[in-house]
């Protein structure tokens, strides 16, 4: 039997060798810290501080704005300087809390932590919710919501997304190697919420060292197992990962819980460990800085709110002038026009490329070659759907299952005519999804 995987997908150059062997380095911010109120899917958080307030590291500065929302904590001690709009990594100006760092990093006194084995499920859940944990792989879905399915007894698998299928990013890889215990502990915490669940670590087979350290770390954990996945993009896409590890297939109208699954990525599980076992809120994450324009690619433990330009400086700055700078991976990340934007809960990496390969490409007519159909993990017809999208034919778009797209970008990647398939489909999907909700 071959390795576990899904049908379709692509094999882009992974570029991981640039930062793979660089151990995580903790770096400290110099300038002001900027916290967007919306670092997650759902309602923005509501500020609980005013300009001029002195705050401590680990103090709540904004509370959840609803059930699907998450609080935000100060990652430094200092003075609230402003509540004003700033650019976030996706290029929108959004309301933010700005804190002037006093450099003392005075931390709040965390309440005495109760031993984990004495905590009730409700206590575990409220700790996760209070800590402001959200899905840190990129989507930013509040973890509390994910861990509150209608029927918790029907959850059979907790899947740790250890695929890290995006090229260049090595943050999860380093976490798996350096924080194996915390990762396994995070899994133990999540498993404590679901009595009938088994924990699966789904790791791509290009990370053999992670597989062996994880197997060693869970040898006394009867409820956990490590599964080796084929190295292929988008192996870490939620639906594809669920299929590869459990053989269950869900579509756009279903949640992982409908297939008895909950999926959390590596960084999220480590943050859950910090929240529940150590009682510390979500304040930091590991960020990969890489790409051919970066002087010393590496992996850094960064406090939320830190300016991305400072993070790049920590990696030696740019050795060549980059044409393109990306927040996240090259397949699904956002290109940024400026680095004057903060690290947020979902910033997995900063990539700088000397050459923007996409800018030179001129889209030409579709030749109907079917490569997009071949690679599409959702098994739809991207070229056709992009045509519908460009003609704004929402009816045909929906009928031919355009909503099933996961926007992984594999179609645009392989298209020999260099069409912006994902972009067209993505724009139409937003409109069609909004209409579906009506």
């Amino acid at each position, binding site marked *: 039997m071959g390795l576990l995987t899904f049908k379709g997908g*692509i094999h882009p150059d992974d570029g991981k060798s640039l930062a793979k062997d660089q151990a995580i380095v903790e770096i400290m911010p110099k300038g002001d810290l900027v916290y967007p109120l919306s670092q997650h899917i759902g309602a923005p958080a509501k500020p609980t501080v005013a300009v001029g307030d002195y705050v401590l590291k680990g103090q709540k500065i904004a509370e959840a704005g609803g059930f699907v929302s998450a609080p935000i904590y100060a990652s430094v001690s200092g003075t609230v300087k402003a509540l004003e709009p700033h650019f976030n990594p996706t*290029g929108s100006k959004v309301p933010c809390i700005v804190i002037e760092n006093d450099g003392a990093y005075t931390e709040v006194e965390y309440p005495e932590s109760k031993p984990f084995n004495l905590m009730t499920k409700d206590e575990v859940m409220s700790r996760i919710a209070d800590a402001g944990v959200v899905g840190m792989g990129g989507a930013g879905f509040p973890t509390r919501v994910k861990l509150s399915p209608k029927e918790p007894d029907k959850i059979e698998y907790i899947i740790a997304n250890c695929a890290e299928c995006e*090229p260049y990013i090595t943050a999860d890889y380093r976490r798996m190697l350096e924080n194996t215990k915390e990762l396994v502990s995070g899994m133990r915490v999540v498993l404590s919420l679901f009595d009938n669940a088994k924990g699966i670590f789904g790791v791509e087979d290009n990370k053999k060292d992670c597989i062996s350290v994880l197997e060693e770390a869970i040898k006394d954990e009867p409820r956990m197992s490590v599964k080796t996945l084929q190295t292929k993009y988008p192996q870490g896409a939620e639906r594809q990962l669920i*299929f590869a590890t459990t053989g269950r*297939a*869900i*579509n*756009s*109208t*279903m949640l992982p819980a*409908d*297939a008895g699954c909950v999926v959390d990525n590596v960084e999220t599980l480590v943050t859950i460990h910090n929240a529940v076992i150590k009682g510390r809120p979500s304040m930091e994450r590991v960020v990969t800085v890489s790409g051919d324009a970066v002087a010393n690619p590496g992996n850094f433990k960064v406090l939320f709110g830190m300016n991305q*330009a400072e993070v790049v400086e920590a990696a030696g700055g740019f050795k060549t002038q*980059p*044409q*393109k*700078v990306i927040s996240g991976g*090259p*397949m*699904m*990340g*956002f*290109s*940024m*026009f*400026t680095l*004057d934007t903060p690290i947020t809960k979902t910033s997995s990496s900063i990539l700088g490329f000397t050459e*923007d*390969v*996409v*800018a030179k*490409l001129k889209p*030409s*007519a*579709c*030749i*109907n*070659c*079917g*490569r997009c159909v071949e690679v599409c993990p*959702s*098994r*739809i*017809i991207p*070229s*056709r759907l992009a045509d519908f999208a460009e003609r704004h034919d929402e009816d045909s778009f929906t009928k*031919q*299952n355009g909503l*099933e797209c996961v926007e992984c*970008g*594999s179609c*645009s*990647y*392989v*298209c*020999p*005519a*260099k069409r912006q398939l*994902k*972009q067209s489909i993505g724009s139409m999907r937003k409109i069609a999804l909004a209409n579906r909700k009506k």
Partner: protein
Amino acid sequence: MSENYNISSSPHVRDKVTSSNIMLMVTIALLPATFFGIYNFGMPALINIVLTTATAVLAEFVYEKLMHKDITIGDFSAVVTGLLLALNLPPTLPYWMGPLGAVFAIIVVKQLFGGLGQNFMNPALAARCFLLISFTGKMTYFVYDGVTGATPLASLKAGEAVNTMDMLLGTTAGTIGETSVIAIMVGAIFLLLMGVIDLRIPGTYIVTFVVFITIFGGHGIDAQYITAHLCGGGLMLGAWFMATDYVTSPITKKGQIVYGICLGCLTGLFRLFGGSAEGVSYAIIFSNLLVPLIERVTLPKPFGKGGEK
């Protein structure tokens, strides 16, 4: 710090394959058959190939220039069309007919319908059929080694014996590029290895055709008869190079199977029960017309659909 980094929608990396290198690979794959045609039929074949291919490219250039469109001759698709048409012409054709067909292929079949990717029929084959209807005599006149003679398939239809070894090698009468199965297969294997085509369409086409003539050919399982049918009448050229044309074949995987079956049955039907000995060209352009219908009924089931919810 510079504030002018490029912005674009993801993905920010792309595969190196482009439409023009795909077309270039198809052109390269056609070269063995082209060179064999020139070797086999001599100067007239060479002149026909050069004139027809050059006219196809020129027609595309002139049309796009006049219509103020982007010039797309760099994508090699006109080269492929011209060359494919030339390979489907008898070597003895008057030198103006091939170019006329090339103009028809590029202007009428391809450009008037919107250019690359928009034509609903294979331009080279549509032009061949246009020439076949307009100049039936010249288009079905074959000379080999100075002797006017029937193509092997016509002989087969007339009940005569044929030499299948000659048909494999290609030392028979026929159109410029269709005679040598070996030369065609060299190109086809190249395309398969480069991932330009896969076995779905040509495989189903050939298998279906074999089944069809075994049942209806009246010879039963007669290896000699089946081989002669497979090697003759441009079936190999059609199956590997023209049925696999991306633009005019279904994009869905199941659709490609259905399309292959249609091709096999139609070719068999035309050959066994039709007026002429061959039938590949008509089978392909007829099946081209069925493609939208085939795609409609073979829409793939998306991932996760039909699940519990």
